């Protein structure tokens, strides 16, 4: 199972380790096999929403919610889903949860919904969720799938928060909208908020993660 390709994200062709049990599953999703830093899945939204810490956190929350929900239902239905139509079943389940979250944002946090724009809808094509449904939830019982959903969602959310923190700090001199770096000695670098900054910070964060984890992973 170790080197099995994740069919959910054909374009990424990433090795999916199908975790162990319980705690191991949690650690695997959140650190050893961090979806963003190790598997490099779902980077589209990771780059797009991280210009502010706040929107990064909301996106992280969305990911946890959708990942847990879809993992649970894919797992519950895993014995009833015919193999040939499993992909479209997974997409339908994921899309349902994304719509729920989108409606929730629109109802209670209109500004945030505006700010995130199309990226809420794009969670559907986020390979992490599809990858977890395909590689984990299809073979494992519901409770363990929930744990896996939390772990992967959390791993993704933390990585997003780190990127968002540095981009907001360097780009605007603020954290969560509060000025941190004084206006006297630090000139905010607008580039960090714009597209190139996203690529740069993300590249550096992965490189640091690689260095911390050590070689041979």
């Amino acid at each position: 199972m170790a080197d099995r390709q994740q069919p959910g994200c054909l374009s990424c062709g990433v090795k999916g380790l199908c975790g162990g049990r319980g705690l191991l599953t949690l650690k695997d999703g959140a650190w050893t096999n961090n979806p963003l830093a190790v598997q490099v899945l779902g980077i589209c939204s990771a780059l797009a929403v991280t210009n502010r810490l706040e929107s990064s956190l909301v996106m992280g929350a969305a990911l946890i919610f959708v990942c847990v929900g879809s993992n649970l239902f894919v797992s519950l239905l895993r014995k009833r889903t015919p193999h040939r139509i499993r992909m479209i079943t997974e997409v339908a389940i994921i899309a349902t949860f994304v719509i729920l979250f989108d409606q929730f944002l629109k109802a209670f946090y209109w500004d945030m919904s505006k700010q995130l724009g199309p990226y809420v809808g794009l969670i559907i094509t986020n390979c992490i969720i599809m990858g977890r449904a395909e590689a984990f939830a299809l073979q494992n019982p519901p409770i363990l799938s929930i744990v896996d959903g939390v772990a992967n969602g959390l791993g993704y959310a933390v990585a997003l928060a780190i990127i968002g923190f540095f981009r907001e700090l360097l780009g605007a001199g603020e954290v969560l909208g509060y000025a941190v770096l004084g206006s006297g000695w630090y000139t905010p670098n607008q580039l960090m908020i714009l597209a190139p900054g996203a690529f740069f910070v993300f590249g550096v964060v992965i490189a640091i993660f690689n260095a911390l984890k050590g070689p041979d992973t």
Partner: protein
Amino acid sequence: MSETSALVILIAAIFTNNILLTNFLGMCSFIACSGQIRTAVGLGTAVTFVMTATTILNFAIYHFILIPLGLDHLTFIVFIAVIAAFVQFVEMFVERFSPKLYFALGIFLPLITVNCAILGASLFMVIRNYTFVQSAGFGFGAGLGWAVAIILMAGLRQKMAYSNIPQPFQGVPIAMIVTCVLAMAFMGFAGMVSIQ
């Protein structure tokens, strides 16, 4: 938005509002399939074609079916179903009528369903309230822009294969840093035309 001509939107979607370099869409396949120029060209062509067609299709479905019936909260699920069905259809069609094209393009088609740039283009089309002609221009331009970016990247990565890169930076990190430089270069087009 209604006064902007489709041509302006097309140009803007390629250069100033490049869907990959400014909106970060389609990154997965961008990173995974930019190893060789030939692959990049194949994938770019397939994406351009599918993106143009699905944007037009989704425009029609959104404005003539979903809105009149008040079902716009189903937008996401309908769009992704349309894209998946369309890709499947094109695959069968090409396989049946042009085996040669199928071998050139075929392997890239399944990848496209999970390419977020395709869904993203449709969602932008809805959010920005484009008219029919504008949508067609935007879909085509966004696809072309994506193709240009991945082909450029493939060229860069082919050269990069011979450079000595620090160990932690090998692979994805250096690709991101190169993309950063590429995005900065594209920012130079910013004053040319602008949409939103």
